[in-house]
């Protein structure tokens, strides 16, 4: 380790409490940003689960609908046949979709309710842990987490879409922080909507000889008033929705984390410098230039911040590990982009924090060492 590094480390670690508080403060401040990024990335992962697992290569929706979450998409039922007729379409399954409340006893949960045709090959539950994977009239498949919380199991009834349905299957991997996914029969769903001949989405599997992009373009060209996207695009749109809607919150929290981190590091480094003034005096008396002393200060703040960054990362990783295991449907996903951003934050914080003590260092009079009882 260089002389500066050694001096910096010594100066920092001599006062353990101060060092711990400084590192802890930076860690928490950086965690603020790291954890929030991770939470939103996790939410984005969860929200795309249905789109990712529905098994469709192409999604056909009402014109202007590019997302699933919270929105509505209603197409004339005749669209399904028109989509089937497009070259390259191997299979087309219409589904009905609405964000509804499922309740059983006192437990209520928001759910994507999917209406599935009897002969569906796509869009149904992908991981049924108990019971049937097919729903008939008056039946429903719910998320097992919801069932557990509500204290219901197969054979019990729940309230959904303003009516009752009997649970015939429990699926897993169908719950997010925001909602779960439930599956009912297409006919039940349609009856609730007054029997109008509509569908929400048409899910398409493409022939092996062609690509989803080509078929999506073909459907878009042949069927009017629809928005056609490949499954990958649809999923990406959903991800962007989360990011765009949370962008402002994230930038505020980033700013807060930055300011708090800066305040903590600046303060501890400044105080550490003040407290070591005599030692800087000694160094100066020994012939050290201001440049060296600055570097010592800079090294101090970088050391605190680097330690804080590592502790913060460990803390966030711990959160990411613990949170999904305590029954919260919350997933934290730490991305490389977020790590780079926070790392950059940390470096800037360290740099800025070392500006304040510069004046202190340069004004240290080497003679201070020789004065007895001088103020520390």
């Amino acid at each position, binding site marked *: 380790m260089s002389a500066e590094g050694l001096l910096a480390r010594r100066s920092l670690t001599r006062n353990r409490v101060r060092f711990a508080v400084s590192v802890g403060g930076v860690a928490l401040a950086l965690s603020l940003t790291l954890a929030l990024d991770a939470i939103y990335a996790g939410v984005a992962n969860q929200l795309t689960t249905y789109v990712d697992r529905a098994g469709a290569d192409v999604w056909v929706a009402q014109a202007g609908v590019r997302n699933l979450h919270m929105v509505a998409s209603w197409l004339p039922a005749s669209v399904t046949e028109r989509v089937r007729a497009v070259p390259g379409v191997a299979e087309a399954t219409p589904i009905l979709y609405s964000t509804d409340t499922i309740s059983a006893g006192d437990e209520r949960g928001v759910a994507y309710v999917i209406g599935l045709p009897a002969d569906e090959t796509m869009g149904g539950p992908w991981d049924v842990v108990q019971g049937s994977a097919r729903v008939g009239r008056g039946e429903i498949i719910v998320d097992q987490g919801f069932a557990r919380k509500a204290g219901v199991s197969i054979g019990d009834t729940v309230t959904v879409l303003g009516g009752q349905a009997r649970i015939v299957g429990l699926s897993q991997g169908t719950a997010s922080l925001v909602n779960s996914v439930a599956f009912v029969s297409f006919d039940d769903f349609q009856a609730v909507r*007054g029997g109008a001949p509509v569908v929400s989405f048409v899910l398409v599997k493409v022939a092996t000889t062609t690509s989803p992009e080509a078929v999506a373009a073909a459907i878009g060209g042949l069927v009017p008033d629809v928005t056609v996207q490949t499954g990958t695009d649809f999923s990406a*749109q959903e991800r962007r929705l989360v990011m*765009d809607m949370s962008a402002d919150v994230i930038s505020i929290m980033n700013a807060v984390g930055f300011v708090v981190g800066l305040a903590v590091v600046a303060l501890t480094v400044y105080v550490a410098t003040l407290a070591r003034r005599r030692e800087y005096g000694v160094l100066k008396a020994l012939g050290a230039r201001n440049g060296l002393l600055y570097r010592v200060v800079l090294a101090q703040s970088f050391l605190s911040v680097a330690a804080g960054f590592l502790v913060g990362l460990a803390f966030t990783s711990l959160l990411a590990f613990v949170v999904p295991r305590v029954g919260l449907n919350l997933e934290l996903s730490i991305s490389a982009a977020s790590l780079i951003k926070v790392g950059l934050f940390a470096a800037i914080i360290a740099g800025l924090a070392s500006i304040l003590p510069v004046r202190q260092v340069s004004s240290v009079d080497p003679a201070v060492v020789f004065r007895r009882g001088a103020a520390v």
Partner: protein
Amino acid sequence: MLLARRNLFRDRTRFLLSVLGVAVSIGLILLLAGYRSGIYRQASAYLDHAQGSVLVAERGVRDFMGTSSVLPAGAEQAVRQAPGVARVIPVVSQFVIFEMHGRKDGFFLVGYDPAKGGGPWDLATGREPEADDEIVVDETAARQHGLAIGDQIRLLDRDATVVGLSGGTTFWAGSMAFARISTLQSLLRAPDLQSFLLVTPTGGTDAAAIANRLSIPGTEVLLKGDVIANDRKLMARVYDAPIGLMVAIAFVVGVLVVGLVIYTATIERRREYGALKAIGARNRILYRVVALQALIAAVAGSALGVGLAYGAGTGLMAWRPQFQVEIEPVAIAFVLAASLLMALFAALIPARAVARLEPAEVFRG
């Protein structure tokens, strides 16, 4: 306690730094807490302003913002005919995502009948929608997207003309927009769709009594206050986890910084406190001086911090009007109490060390 004050003010930079450290911490905690309160306030804006005290929804639905509700046919008629009902306002609500300037944004679209009510309560400019291709959007959202009256916007598979701008209608996931109920019915391809009924009881009729009396198959009759509470609960589940976590972290960091500031300020005066002892001061006096100094710095910092929070909140709302910051007195009291306690605690730890010192020791080394 002249001594405490004089000692404190002698080194102005250090004192200022302590105060500033405390102020920044307190300001940040309050700002975040206020931001969180503001979100809640915004979430209930529509129901707060809508007429009626009873809400009729699809069976099983207990909230307004979170889910789509579909009322059974004939529900409006049945409610109208019930005794004690003065007014019934049907509305259709649907969340719509749109994209402008490469960024996704959301409208909570409310379909209403201008003759019956349920529309914007603060129409800043323009008029209510008179035709099916007309829409009233939030003025803040309009400003952000560069929309003015007369502009066309794409609403799913059709175009709509902006005819009015409403105030106070932004919320955490976007903004509200208003169109005729028939616009939404055609947009959602559901000709007679009604999502909710806002019911006003006749004078002298109790809302709870109406709620108990109304029994229409396939519906849920709710008190408006309960629905607002449910919306908040729903939001708390969805949104509060991240924000709550942030407020908690900011609180811990903030209080820690207060402690750190006061701790270092005290520890750096150890020598002076030692000198006090050397001239015969008792430990009791020493503690009092230390505590008083900590309190002066903490109180000055806190006062500045509260001001800072209000300033930053106002600035934030001016910069991004969709954010509402509501700094609540309870939050201020709580944060101040916690920081003062922390300040005292942080000051007394090093003071104890000094108290145990032999007076002569301070002059050594």
